[in-house]
C-alpha cells in the first residue's frame, strides 16, 4: 500500500516470532513512561542506594582509600547476607513507588478506551496481553532491584575472590528470587487493581490502601494480642520474611517481651514470626486471587448475562 499508489495491498513480508511478541507492549509503554521528566528523575534517584552499596563494597577492598579517609575497617558494615538483604529491602521500597507510578494506568486506560478488542482480535492472546502489561512493571523493578544487586554481588565476588563466591553462592537465591517475588507481586497487584478500577488516581489510592491498611491493622493485632501473627496480612512483613528465608537469615523468634503482672510476677512472652511456609502460602493466595480477577476482567467485551 505505497503512498503514491494509494491502493490496498496485503503484507507479504516476514512475520516476527510469536513467543516474545508480548514484549512489544513494554517497549511502547516505556516511551510514555519516560516521557515524564518527574518519573525519569525519580527512577534515577532509585539508583542512589545502589551507588552507596557499590561504594561500601569498594571501600572494603581499597585499603589506600580507607587509610586516606582514616576509617577503621571494623567500623565498615560487613559484606554478608544481611548487607545484601538490607539493600534489597531498601530497593524494594523504591520498587513499590515505581509500581505505584507506572502500574495503575496500564490496563485501566485500555479498558476505558475499549482498546482490548483491538489487541485481542490479533494473534495475541489474553495471557500475552497480561504478560505484556505485567512486564512493563516487572522489567522496571528488576532493573532497580535484583539485576544491579546481582551485579554488585559479582563485583564483591571479584574483589573478594572465588572462595567467598563459593561460600556465599546461596545469596544469589535471595537476591534473584527475593527481587523477583517482590516484582511479580507488585506487577500482579498493580495490574489487577488497574483492571478493576478505571481511574488512575483511585487505582493508586487502592494500591496504597492494600499496602498500608493491612500493615497498620497487623501492627494493631500484634500489639493487642502480643503476637507477631498480625504480620501475616502485612505485605511488607511477608516479603521481608520471605526474602530473609531466601537469604537464610530468617529467625522466627523476633523478640522476648517481659512484663510485670499485678501480683509482681514477671511474665515472658516470646514473640514469634509466622512460619515461612505461611508467608509463602499467603503470597501464593494473593497471586492466585490476582490471576483469577485478571482472567475475569481482561476480556475483549464484557458479556451481560
Amino acid at each position, binding site marked *: *500500500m*505505497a*503512498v503514491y499508489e*494509494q*491502493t*490496498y*495491498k*496485503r*503484507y*507479504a*513480508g*516476514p*512475520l*516476527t*516470532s*510469536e*513467543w516474545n*511478541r508480548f514484549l*512489544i507492549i513494554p517497549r*511502547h509503554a516505556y*516511551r*510514555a513512561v519516560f516521557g515524564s521528566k518527574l518519573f525519569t528523575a525519580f527512577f534515577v534517584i532509585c539508583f542512589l542506594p545502589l551507588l552507596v552499596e557499590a561504594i561500601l563494597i569498594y571501600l572494603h577492598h581499597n585499603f589506600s582509600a580507607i587509610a586516606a579517609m582514616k576509617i577503621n575497617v571494623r567500623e565498615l558494615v560487613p559484606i554478608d547476607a544481611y548487607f545484601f538483604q538490607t539493600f534489597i529491602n531498601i530497593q524494594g521500597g523504591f520498587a513499590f513507588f515505581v509500581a505505584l507510578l507506572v502500574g495503575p494506568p496500564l490496563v485501566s*486506560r*485500555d479498558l*476505558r*478506551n*475499549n*482498546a482490548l*478488542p*483491538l*489487541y*485481542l*482480535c*490479533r*494473534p*495475541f*492472546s489474553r495471557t500475552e496481553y497480561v504478560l505484556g502489561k505485567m512486564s512493563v512493571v516487572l522489567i522496571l523493578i528488576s532493573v532497580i532491584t535484583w539485576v544491579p544487586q546481582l551485579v554488585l554481588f559479582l563485583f564483591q565476588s571479584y574483589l573478594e575472590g572465588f572462595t567467598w563466591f563459593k561460600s556465599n553462592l546461596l545469596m544469589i537465591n535471595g537476591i534473584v528470587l527475593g527481587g523477583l517475588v517482590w516484582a511479580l507481586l507488585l506487577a500482579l497487584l498493580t495490574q489487577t487493581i488497574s483492571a478493576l478500577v478505571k481511574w488512575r488516581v483511585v487505582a493508586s489510592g487502592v494500591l496504597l490502601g492494600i499496602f498500608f491498611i493491612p500493615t497498620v491493622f497487623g501492627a494493631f493485632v500484634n500489639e493487642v494480642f502480643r503476637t507477631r501473627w498480625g504480620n501475616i496480612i502485612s505485605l511488607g512483613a511477608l516479603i521481608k520474611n520471605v526474602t530473609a528465608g531466601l537469604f537464610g537469615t530468617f529467625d522466627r523468634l523476633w523478640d522476648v517481651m517481659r512484663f510485670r503482672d499485678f501480683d509482681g510476677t514477671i511474665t515472658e512472652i516470646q514473640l514469634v514470626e509466622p512460619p515461612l511456609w505461611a508467608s509463602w502460602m499467603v503470597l501464593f493466595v494473593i497471586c492466585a486471587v490476582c490471576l483469577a480477577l485478571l482472567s475475569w476482567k481482561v*476480556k*475483549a*467485551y464484557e*458479556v*451481560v*448475562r
Partner: protein
Amino acid sequence: MALPATVQEELIRPQTVDDPPVIDLHGLSVAFGRRQILKGLRGDLRGKAIGLLGPNGAGKTTLIHTLLGFHQPTAGTAQIFGHDITDEAKKIKTLIGYMPERDAFIAKMTAVHFVRLMAELSGLPSEAALERAHEALFYVGLGEARYRKLDTYSLGMKQLAKLAQAIVHGPKLIFLDEPTNGLDPPARLRMIKLIREIRDSGQANIVLSSHLLVDVEECCDEILILRDGQIAVYCNLEEERKSNRKFLMLETRGDQNKFVEALSSLGCEYAISSDSRLKVVLQNGVEVRDLYRLAGETQVQLRRLSYKRDSLEDIFLKAMENGYGGL
C-alpha cells in the same frame, strides 16, 4: 521463530473459486447464560463483501465477535477460509482485521504510534510496521494528522484511524462493524469509497455490519439478514440485480393506449401506474430495443426507462415480515 510458511503464503495468496468459503457456518449457536443469542446458523458465504443486516439485538455483533474468537460457541462451529474458529483461532487472527463499532483506541498515543503498535502486534517487524502505519494513515486520509494524539481526533477521524489499524497488516478478511456510525455525509461517503476500493482491489474480503441499508447496498454483493439470532434472509445482491433485469419502469409521452396494446401483442405484462408511467415485465425473447421499435410505431416518446428491482429495503422489510430462510 517466524510464522510457518503456510500461514504467510495464505496471507498473500488471492482467493480463488476453489478455495473454501470465506465464512462457513455449521449450526453455530451462542448463548450468554440462559439467553440464546445465535441459534444454529448454517450456510456458507463467499461474497467479496458480505453485508450483515438485522434489527437491534438480532445477533450481528455477536456473530462477528464469535467469529473473532471473543465468544465461545455453545453448539456448532464456524470456519473462516476453512479454519475452525475454535481450534485454529490464532491462525485465523493472522488473516483478519477488525474495526469495532465503539470508540476504541489507546489513549495518549499519536495515530502513527497507535497504528504501528497494532501492526507490530499483528506480527510485522518494527520497521515494516512503521512504514505500513504511515501508508495506512495516508490511505485512509489521515496523512496530515498522523502525528496528532488520538484523543484530539474528531469522531470521523477516529473512525478512519480505526479503519487504518484494521488494514495496516494487510489482512485477507476485514470485519467492519458499523463503520459509518456517527459520520457526517462527506465523511460517510469517504468511508464508503474506501470500503469499495478495498473490495474492488480483490486483495481482501469484507464483512460489513451496518444498520444503514444504503451502506450495505453500496458496498456489498452478498447479504445476510439476521432476526432473533437466526438467518432470516440470505441474498446474493449481484444475482438479484441480474435476475430482476426483466422488470422495467417506463415514462411515456403520447397515446399510451396504442403502446400498451402493442405491448400486449408481444406478450408482455404491464401495469399502468399513472397517465405517463408504466411497469412492464418483459417476456423471454423480448428485448428493450423492441420497446423502442413499438414506441416509434405507435408515436409514443419514451422519456425514461429504468430497471425496477427490489431494493435492499424491500428485501429487508420482507425478511422482517416473513419467516426464516437459510442459505
